[in-house]
């Protein structure tokens, strides 16, 4: 008897110790700015994904706590008290079984519906081509990224975008499969050799004021905010080194930067005319490097 009472105690103790250990060790990490969910989203699609994640968490938490609590009740209440004891004789209940088939089905249907709405809103080809102010062709190669702009120039290492502007992104690769991922802005899109994928971002203007988080830092020269990401598809020995930086700046800074990119290659254009704000509002905008195929 003493054995059967000490065992649950030991279980509780062990769980407490494990929980405390986890807490103690994870606290400095959390205090350090490591986020429990995603890094603060800084683009509308990033926001929507974040919200969907939070929505799923409500039923998930109920199921998790319900199951673990039931297991604990079983562990404490239904131990064998004496060697000859046998369990109850019932072994089925149609009502119960229908309940725990129908309720999960409904939950799943709601989650799938919410996710489908979000897919239509932010992941369709139409969403990516919704009156973009700027087109950037992202190209992966072992082991770096290059970004080709509407205006015809290409930069490496760091992509620069204006805040508050719709940026249409196309992705492809010159060699193996890569995956472009900046968690604060949007989910991943694969860069696959042989065809072009597309996506979009629209960086919140607020990041010019507040740019704090371990995945971002203030760019002193421009006052912009640099978001950090990494290649997410194993692409060879240098995979770990294939970093991504996106610098979001004000429109003025962006125009100045664009001008600077265009002058060194000695392309004598009297008026640089980036005019991203004057992009055609009717009809798809011409994309120089990739043909989006709706």
């Amino acid at each position: 008897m003493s054995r059967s009472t000490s065992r649950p105690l030991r279980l509780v103790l062990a769980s407490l110790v494990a929980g405390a250990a986890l807490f103690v060790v994870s606290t400095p990490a959390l205090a350090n700015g490591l986020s429990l969910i995603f890094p603060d989203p800084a683009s509308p699609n990033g926001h929507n994904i974040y919200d969907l994640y939070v929505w799923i968490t409500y039923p998930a938490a109920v199921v998790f706590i319900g199951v673990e609590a039931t297991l604990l009740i079983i562990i404490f209440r239904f131990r064998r008290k004496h060697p000859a004891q046998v369990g109850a004789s019932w072994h089925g209940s149609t009502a119960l079984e229908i309940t725990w088939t129908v309720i999960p089905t409904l939950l799943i249907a709601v989650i799938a519906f919410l996710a489908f709405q979000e897919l239509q809103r932010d992941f369709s080809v139409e969403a990516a081509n919704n009156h973009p102010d700027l087109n950037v062709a992202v190209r992966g190669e072992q082991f770096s990224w290059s970004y080709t702009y509407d205006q015809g120039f290409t930069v490496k290492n760091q992509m620069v975008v204006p805040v508050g502007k719709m940026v249409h992104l196309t992705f492809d690769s010159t060699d193996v499969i890569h995956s472009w991922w900046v968690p604060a802005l949007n989910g991943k899109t694969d860069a696959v050799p042989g065809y072009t994928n597309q996506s979009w971002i629209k960086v919140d203007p607020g990041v010019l004021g507040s740019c704090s988080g371990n995945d971002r830092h203030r760019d002193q020269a421009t006052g912009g905010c640099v978001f950090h990401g990494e290649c997410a598809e194993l692409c060879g020995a240098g995979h770990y080194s294939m970093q991504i930086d996106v610098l979001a700046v004000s429109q003025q800074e962006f125009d100045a930067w664009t001008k600077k990119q265009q002058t060194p290659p000695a392309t004598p254009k009297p008026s640089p005319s980036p005019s991203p704000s004057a992009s055609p509002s009717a009809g798809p905008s011409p994309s120089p490097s990739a043909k989006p195929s709706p």
Partner: protein
Amino acid sequence: MATVAQPQVIDEAYERSLWSPITVWLTTTDHKLIGIMYMFTSFLAFLVAGIFALIMRVQLAQPNLNVVDAETYNQLVSAHGTTMIFFFVTLFLTGMANYIVPIMVGARDMAFPRVNALGFWLVPVSIGLYYSGFFAGGALNAGWTGYPPLTSKHFNPGLGVDFWTLSLIVWAISGIMASVNFLTTILALRAPGMTLLRLPLFVWAQISTSLLLLIVGAPLAGAMILTEIDRQFGTNFFTSAGRPVLYQHLFWFFGHPEVYIMILPGFGMISEIIPVFSRKRIFGYESMVLAIFGIVFLSMGVWAHHMYTVGLNIYVETMFMALTAAIAVPTGIKFFNWMATAWQGAIEFTTPMKFAFGFLATFVIGGITGVYLSAVPVDTQLHQSYYVVAHLHYVLFGGSVFTIFAGIYYWFPKWTGRLLNERLGNWNFWTMLVGFNGTFLIMHTLGLDGMPRRIATYAREDWAGVNFFITVMSFLLAFSVLLFVINVLYSRKHGVIAGNDPWDGNTLEWATTSPPEPYNFERVPEVRSFMPLRDAKLAAAGSPTASDH
């Protein structure tokens, strides 16, 4: 039926057991000896792949370490995944089923004993081929999924990829042989009275697993063959000039059902263990069988959920999302049925039962994170991050490995005649539970925070603390496996003598000796329910039997 024709040879094998001359092991067609060889071989693979994991954890303990270089790290990642999935979990479960299923259905051996032996002997060939890569300039370095074009000749000229494709082709052939054998044995060699709805749930699980492997083994071999033709003959099935994504379709059409191949037998074991130690009949036998086949059916329509970021049409993605999330329903049914079985039971927490509850408590986390991952938009964030690493280990370790350990502690007395030590088993369980959750729980956070999987090192200082903690806990997990190995070595010689039926079991394997004679049963018992031994005991005690089928 070569085995039945030469009983004296097998007798000899049994007299001398594990340390008998090598020739007996080399020539045996006995399903029990073959089962033990499967388990022994795949457990060695488990230890090797576990050591690889520890090396990777040391490398990741702090930012910018260079314990191993990136190329070696990529080979370790690939070998860890391939070994655990193909050579450990799948094959260990094949070994357990090889030993137990024929006895559970009251057969004297598998339907095709020589095919069984051939199927097993292809296993060392397959493992040997894969590991040859390490001695030929480097093994596979593209992850266990081996996506082209990274595995094409142009980007990967070494022999490692070739050894990998050949290894998996041999593995698939071996698996298909075993599947045919299991299905035939279960359908054709059942004891008198054992109708399909009187099959123990572990046997049903083996039917489902065998069906799955029979269906998806060929597409895997196909993907490997095309990869190899691309490499050797310059074709363009999967190269940049062809369709790299086609490979992903083929691979995951195998790869996702493979997850269920690795978990359904575990579900079957839990369905045997919980009723026995609760002294209560399984709740909802028929719905358990239906749920298994619900999972089998759905599992073949979900593969593209591994491909949400390759740019599929959103309506196609929606279909895969719906089917993927739907798998939570039959899995949930099984979960609720197990809990209902234990509810109001008379539970004894022996080591197998502890592992069964450890499985329930941890696997539910893998199930829930699976629902998050099924939602396409959320998955585009979580895909290929440490969140997925955490999820898959909750499914494959919290699921498959915990059930495997439950099954080993449960059936070890049948295999050897001696019980595993309970005190060591208790330590084994608690260190594994804490070590496992310590290692993998907080990986979810790393993934959400942006750490991609399969990176050889990282620069972010704020990831250092968590990674260091994970590394420490991974050594606790390894320690738990060490305790298990010690327990097996000790108990084989000094364990408590088990007798025929140490757990007061329900099924036929407990009706025969431990270990069973080569012919399994002196007299094949007659079966009136899915708990034939329980019936026999109740009849002997003068009580009404539980049979109602």
